[in-house]
């Protein structure tokens, strides 16, 4: 179980404008400002839950995960993970948690992953028989067979990520902090990792906290969403409830088999997209039956689908971002975003 009450984490950041003069000036007199990375966050997560942390870059998601895993000392507030105070880094806590960071590797770079696994077995004091059993299980689930004896530096990003996951789970932790575990991976690999996390959660009743720039990861894995923005918790609850609160209208997509003008379609809902004959309408939930009846009966629409609004759209509204900013952020895929988060903290 994880309990967080009024968690605050501030960083003191040295601010300096660009240029030589500013660099010289900063040698003599430095200006600091306090960045409130996490600013009074409270939540409780029960054993076995899968929770998604969402928020724009620099919102405080990763900082919260780092406090929960004991890497950072909180500025104030109470944090309890499995009955322990994380920053005290007690052995019993470290044995029950793991943190996977998509952009940080725990694998020894010039040695095959099997050497990191052997080292983790030793430091986590896992019995040989149990280690062999877990490794065999992970090797099968993640298809690691051909990878574990190749030097880490020769693995592709996706292969390395799978090996990272195995290294993080060899001691069978019951609390998983996953920070962008699928970053930079192709769709097939994302799906494989998603399936693996879900099955690990179910088989070991493990608690999973996930941050990801890929909304599909979050939607597929996390029934509960915690949204953090500017260090503050702005939503904690069911993913569908969040969507319903923010945008109760449905998205109806279909292909027209005969002509219909935007005026005809406008009577059914708002036209959001039109690509050739493929159209997406925004329709209030209560009007769905009549709209669908009209589309199928009168307009002979085909391939009709009714969906909730995409989570990206909801978040864009929540964080007040323009679609362009969102698109460029997604193009940056986190690396630049996290870099700017880093810069903000420095």
């Amino acid at each position, binding site marked *: 179980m994880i309990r967080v009450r009024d968690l605050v984490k501030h960083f003191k950041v040295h601010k300096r404008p660009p240029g030589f003069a500013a660099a010289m000036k900063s040698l003599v007199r430095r200006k600091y400002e306090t960045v409130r990375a996490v600013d009074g966050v409270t939540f409780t997560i029960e054993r076995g839950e899968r929770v998604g942390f969402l928020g724009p870059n620099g919102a405080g998601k990763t900082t919260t995960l*780092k406090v929960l895993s004991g890497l950072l000392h909180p500025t104030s507030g109470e944090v309890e993970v499995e009955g322990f105070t994380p920053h005290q880094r007690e052995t019993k806590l470290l044995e029950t948690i793991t943190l996977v*960071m998509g952009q940080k590797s725990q694998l020894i770079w010039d040695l095959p992953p099997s050497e990191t696994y052997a080292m983790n077995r030793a430091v986590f004091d896992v019995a040989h028989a149990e280690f062999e059993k877990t490794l065999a299980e992970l090797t099968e689930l993640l298809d690691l067979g051909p990878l574990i004896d190749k030097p880490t530096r020769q693995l592709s990003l996706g292969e390395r990520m799978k090996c990272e996951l195995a290294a993080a789970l060899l001691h069978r932790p019951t609390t998983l902090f996953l920070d962008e575990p699928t970053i930079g991976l192709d769709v097939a690999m994302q799906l494989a990792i998603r399936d693996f996390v879900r099955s690990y959660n179910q088989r070991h009743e493990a608690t999973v906290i996930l941050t990801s720039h890929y909304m599909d990861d979050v939607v597929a894995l996390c029934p509960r969403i915690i949204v953090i923005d500017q260090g503050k918790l702005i939503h904690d609850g069911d993913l569908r409830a969040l969507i319903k609160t923010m945008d109760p209208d449905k998205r109806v997509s279909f292909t027209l088999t005969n002509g219909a003008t935007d005026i005809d379609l406008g009577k059914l809902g708002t036209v959001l997209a039109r690509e050739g004959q493929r159209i997406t309408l925004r329709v209030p939930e209560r009007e769905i039956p009549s709209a669908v009846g009209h589309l199928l009966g009168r307009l002979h629409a085909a391939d009709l689908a009714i969906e909730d609004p995409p989570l990206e759209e909801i978040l864009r509204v929540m964080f007040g971002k323009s679609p362009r900013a969102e698109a460029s952020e997604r193009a940056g895929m986190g690396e630049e975003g996290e870099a700017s988060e880093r810069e903000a903290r420095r």
Partner: protein
Amino acid sequence: MITSTMRRTLRAIPTLLRVGVAETVAYRAEFLVWILTTTLPLVMLALWTSVASEAPFRSYTSADFVAYYLAGLIVRNLTGSWVAWQISEEIRMGAMSMRLLRPIHPFVAFSVSHLAAVPFRTIVALPIAVVLLLSSGASALATEPLQLVLAVPSLALAWLITFSFLFGLGTLGFLFTKTMAMLNLYFGLFSLFSGYLMPIPLLPPILREIAEYSPFRFMFSVPVELMTRKIDSAELAWLMVGQVAWAIVTLAVALWVWKRGLRRYEAVGG
């Protein structure tokens, strides 16, 4: 009393040593460069033997210099450490985070991986030193059995003092992010006060006084002295007690700085 944490740490050491050896072998180019950087005693040897070639320099004969610097080469190779640079870099780049998630104190993890490299260092240093010592400096070697026996624990203590000192210095990276300037300052002070550049008795009086009590002497000069000059029993006891005392002090300070520094860790990078 051995706690369960200590027991599990002891159980982990053989595997850590094995992985440390594998790492040393994997990083062979880097390792060779490191070995080459510890050959300063050979440069100093050439310099001082030429100074003393005609007549002894302040009671140091050419053979004395040969014995001193070759013993120094052995000591430096067995006790030198790059842990401060490693820690400083891991803190700066955020790689320390992964280390902190393992239930083993980083002092133990770093020290075991560094100890794993020691045998490989002797492969390079020992044959050179033995050959040269036997050919031209053997007459200046210490012959007292007790001194030569004590040289072994003295080497171990010199390693511990050096490692703890550098562990503490690297850990300052938690507070200052970039510690390279401090590490350069350390190396300057070490070179001067440890006897690495020249035997301590050759230093000007004030510097000699400082050097004799500084931790640097106990990192390098003491084991060299045990191997190369006759030391009476009172001084021998003083040197060994001094080494133990500095080992305790540097270890305690290193662990204290670590504990304090950890609170300031920013775990940069996602």
